[in-house]
C-alpha cells in the first residue's frame, strides 16, 4: 500500500491560520467568537450604519436569501443574506454583553466564512474567510488599535512589522482607515510581493461609529470601541505564495497536503 496506516493527515491551511489567529488574540486577552453565516439585514447592514440605499446592498454584491423575511426593530420588512463580512459578530457580541450584563471590556476576534456575489478568479472567491477584531471599553483609542494590529501581524508573519493608517471610509467606523502592513518579505525595502512599495494593503479598521454602539444598546457617551477586519485567505496567500484562492475551497489535497 502506498499510504502507511500510521501516516498523519493534514490540517487545512485556513484552519491553521484561524488557530494561529485565535492563539495570538488569546494571548492579548481576546476571546474567539463565532456566529451565523446566514444573517438578517439588521445585523449585516442596518446596525452597522450601512444605509438602505448603500451600493453594497445591491444584488451584484450580496447573496440574498429567497422567500425569507422578518421585521426589523422599526417594524419594517427585513430580508436575509449570506453575511458579507464578519462584522455581524460585532453586533451579536455587543447585544449579548448588554443582554447578559457582562462585564466590559469587550475584546473579541471573530474568524469566519463570508460571502460576496462576484465573479471568481485566482484572487476573487464568492466565499472566503475574514477575521474581525473588536474592542469596546472606556479606554479604547486609535493608538491602542494600532498597537493590537501591529502585534497581530507581527505574530502572524513572524517578524516585527509596523502598520500605517490611511484615511478611508466605512459607514460603521469613524475615524475609518485602510491598513497597510510593512512588507514581511523585504521589511519595507521593496520586493515583488509588495510591488516595490514596501507596504501591503491588508485590511480596514477604525473607531466604532457611535451609531453602531447605540444600535447595539451600548452608551456611546460612556464607551468607545475600535474594530479591524482583514481577509484570512489573503494573509495565507501572501505568507505562503498561494497563487489561486479557489484551491482553498475545492477540497484539493494537493494543496492541503503541503501543510
Amino acid at each position, binding site marked *: 500500500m*502506498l*499510504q502507511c496506516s*500510521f*501516516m*498523519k*493527515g493534514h*490540517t487545512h491551511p485556513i484552519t*491553521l*491560520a484561524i*488557530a*494561529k489567529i485565535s492563539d495570538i488574540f*488569546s494571548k*492579548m*486577552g*481576546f*476571546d*474567539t467568537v*463565532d456566529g451565523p*453565516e*446566514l444573517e438578517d439585514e439588521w445585523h449585516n447592514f442596518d446596525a452597522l450604519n450601512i444605509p438602505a*440605499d448603500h451600493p453594497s446592498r445591491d444584488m451584484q454584491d450580496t*447573496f*440574498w436569501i*429567497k422567500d425569507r423575511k422578518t421585521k426589523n426593530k422599526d417594524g419594517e420588512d427585513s430580508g436575509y443574506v*449570506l453575511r458579507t463580512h464578519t462584522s455581524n459578530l460585532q453586533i451579536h457580541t455587543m447585544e449579548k454583553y448588554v443582554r447578559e450584563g457582562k462585564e466590559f*471590556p469587550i475584546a473579541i476576534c471573530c474568524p469566519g466564512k463570508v*460571502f460576496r456575489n462576484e*465573479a*471568481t478568479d485566482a484572487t476573487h472567491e*464568492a*466565499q472566503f474567510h475574514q477575521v474581525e477584531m473588536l*474592542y469596546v*471599553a472606556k479606554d479604547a*483609542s*486609535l*493608538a*491602542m488599535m*494600532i*498597537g493590537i494590529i501591529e502585534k497581530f501581524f507581527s505574530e*502572524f508573519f513572524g517578524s516585527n512589522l509596523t502598520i500605517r*493608517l*490611511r*484615511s*478611508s*471610509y466605512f459607514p460603521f467606523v*469613524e*475615524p475609518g482607515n485602510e491598513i497597510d502592513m510593512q512588507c514581511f518579505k523585504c521589511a519595507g525595502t521593496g520586493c515583488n510581493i509588495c510591488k516595490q512599495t514596501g507596504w501591503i494593503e491588508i485590511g480596514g479598521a477604525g*473607531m466604532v461609529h*457611535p451609531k453602531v454602539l447605540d444600535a447595539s444598546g451600548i452608551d456611546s457617551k460612556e464607551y468607545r470601541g475600535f474594530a479591524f477586519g482583514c481577509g484570512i485567505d489573503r494573509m495565507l496567500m501572501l505568507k*505562503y505564495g*498561494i497563487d489561486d484562492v479557489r484551491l482553498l*475551497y*475545492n*477540497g*484539493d*489535497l*494537493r*494543496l*492541503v497536503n*503541503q501543510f
Partner: protein
Amino acid sequence: MKFLKSWLQDYIVEILPEDAAIKDALNKKAFEVEEVIPVSGDTIYDIKVLPNRAHDAFGHRGMAREIVADFAYTFKEDLRILKNDSFLSPTITTPVVAIDDAQSCTRFMSIRIDEITVGDSPDWLKKRLESIGQRSINNIVDITNYVQFSLNKPMHAYDARSIKGTLHARFAKASESLTTLDDKELKLDEKTLVITDDEKVLGLAGIKGGKFSGIKSDTTSVILESANFSPTLIRKTSQAYDIRTDASKRFENGIANSLIEEGLHMTANLIKEICPDAKASAGVDIYPNKDLPGKVRFSLNEINKILGANYTSRDIVDTLKRLAFNIVSNEADNYFIEVPSERLDIRIKEDVAEEIGRIIGYEKLVPVLPKLNRQGILNKRTYYANKVREILITNGFSEVITYTFGNSGIVELVKGTATDKEKLRSSLGEGITSALSLNLYNAPLLGQDTIKIFEFGNVFTKEAEEFHLAIALDDSNHKTNFSQESSLVLAEIKRTLGVEDLHGNTVSAKPHVVEIDFDSLIDTLKEPNTYEPTTFSNLPVVSYKSIPPYPFVARDIAMWVPDNITWEDIHNLTLEIHNHLINRIDLFDTFSKEKEGVKRTSYAFRLVFQASDRTLTDEEVNKMMEPYYELFKSKGFEIR
C-alpha cells in the same frame, strides 16, 4: 476621478510641490492617488475620492482645499463665484421658477442671459476639459461643464427660445415621455422628478437634459438652471432608467445648497468673460428650507481620548485653521466650531477627531496595547472541533473546505454566481464526496492509494443553521470496506469528548461517508473556560509549490533486484536521471523470494510526470521512460 494640477493651483497661493509629494500626502491623509499622468507642462491625477467626501472633493476647488489642509497652504477663492451685477440689464425678464416638493428639489435658481454667441471655446477652456477626458462641445456647454468640474455643481443651460412659461421641478405624469439628447425615448412615471415648462418635459431632473431644449449653434439667449435634488431620489431614478451621468453621480452623493448660487454666478460670469456682449436678467432663487451650517462641539480631552494622543490646544487650533473650520467659541478647550458648507460629512466629534488625526498624521500616534490581564477563550464549537481535528489528523484524515452553495439544498438564493450555485447546502455530503473523487483521481500525484478526508462546516435547513462534521473514505479501486476504520475513529471521538450519542448518519456506504450534527454532539458539553493551544496552533514552515493545471501521467515499474539492493538504492538511481518533469516516485509493492538458492526482491514503484506548461503526451512519456529501463538493465535488474 481626474484632476489637473494647474486647475488645482488656481485655488492655492503657494506653488504646488512635485507630483510625488502631492501623491504621498494625499495617499496618507485623504485619498488614494491611483495614477499620476504627466502631460505637457502639467499633471493629471487620477484620485479615488472616498464616498463620504464626494460632497466637496468631487470638484477641483474641494480637492484644492484638501491639499491646502494637507500642506498647510493658503486657499485662494475664484472670485467668479460671486454675484456680479455689472452686466445686469433690467429689460431682460427674469425666468419664472416653481418647485412642487421641497424634499425632492431643495433649491432652484435661474437667470437669463441674452446676446451671447455660441461658438468654439477658447483654448484654455478646451484644454482643461480635454485634459480630464471631456469632449469640448461649444462655449456655453463647456462653461457649464467647467463649473461642474470646478465646484462639483452640475449646471444646465437651455436655449431660451425653447422654454415656454414657468421652469417647473415636479413629478412626471404617467402619460408623459422625454426624448433625451442622445435620442432615447423615455416613458416617464409618477416617481420621476422632471423639469418642465408649461408645455413639455425638458429633462430628467439632475440626470439628463432633453433633446429639444439644448444649446444650438444659433442660440443667442440662454436660461441657466442651478438646482439641487434629493440624493436618494436621483439614485433611484438613475437606476430605474439606467442612465448615469456626471451630474447624477454628484447629486446622488449629495451637495450643499450653498453651491447652487456659487454655480449660477460662476456660470454667468464665465459667459460674460467669453461673450463680452452678454447681458443678464436678475436672478431668481427658490430656497424653501435653508441649510443649517454644520456645527460640532467637542473638547480637547475627547479628541485626545479617541485618538490616543496628547495633542495641545495649539495643535487643535492650527489643524482647524488648515481645514478652514471656523472656531465659534473656545472656552477652556471646549470647542464649538462651524464647518465649511460643502463639508456635509462633518457633523459629530468623531468626524472632527478623524480630521485632526489625519491632518496631523496618524504616524504620530504611539501604539499601545490594552492591559487585559486575562487569556482569551475559544468559542465552544471551535474548541471541541479542534479536539476532533486532532483525532482525525492523527488517524490519517486530511481536512477539506468545500463550497456552501451548490445544486441541492432547501434554502435558496435570489441570485447566485451561476444557476447551479443558487442553493445552500443542507448536508456536507455532496461537497465532500466530490472532493473525494477529485483526490482519488489525483491519488498517484498525492502518493496515496486511500483518501481519507473530513470537513467541518455550516449547513442550512429550513429553520436552522447547523455546524456539521463529515468524514469520507475511499480507495482507488473502490474495494476496501472502510466501515470498521470509520467506527474506530468515531468511537475515539466519542470517548475523547465523553459523549454517548454521535448524532451521526451514514450518507453513503460506498464511498464511505458519515455526517455528524456536531452542534448536537457537543450540546451537553460544558463551555470551555480556559485556553488550550492545539497541536496545530503554530503555522508550519512550508515552501508552497504551485499546482500545475495540466494533467499528470503515471508509469509503473516492477523489477527483481538482488537481495542487497534496498529501495533507497533504487530511489537514488532513479534520481540520477535528470528529468525536471518527474513529480513523484512512490514505492507501492515489495516482496522477496528465493529462487534456486538466490534471494531476490521485487520492487514495484510508480513514476509520476507532470509539466507546468502543457499536457504531456503518451509518446513523450514513453520516451522519458527509456533511460530508466536502460539504467536498470545495465545494473542487471530484471524488469518484470
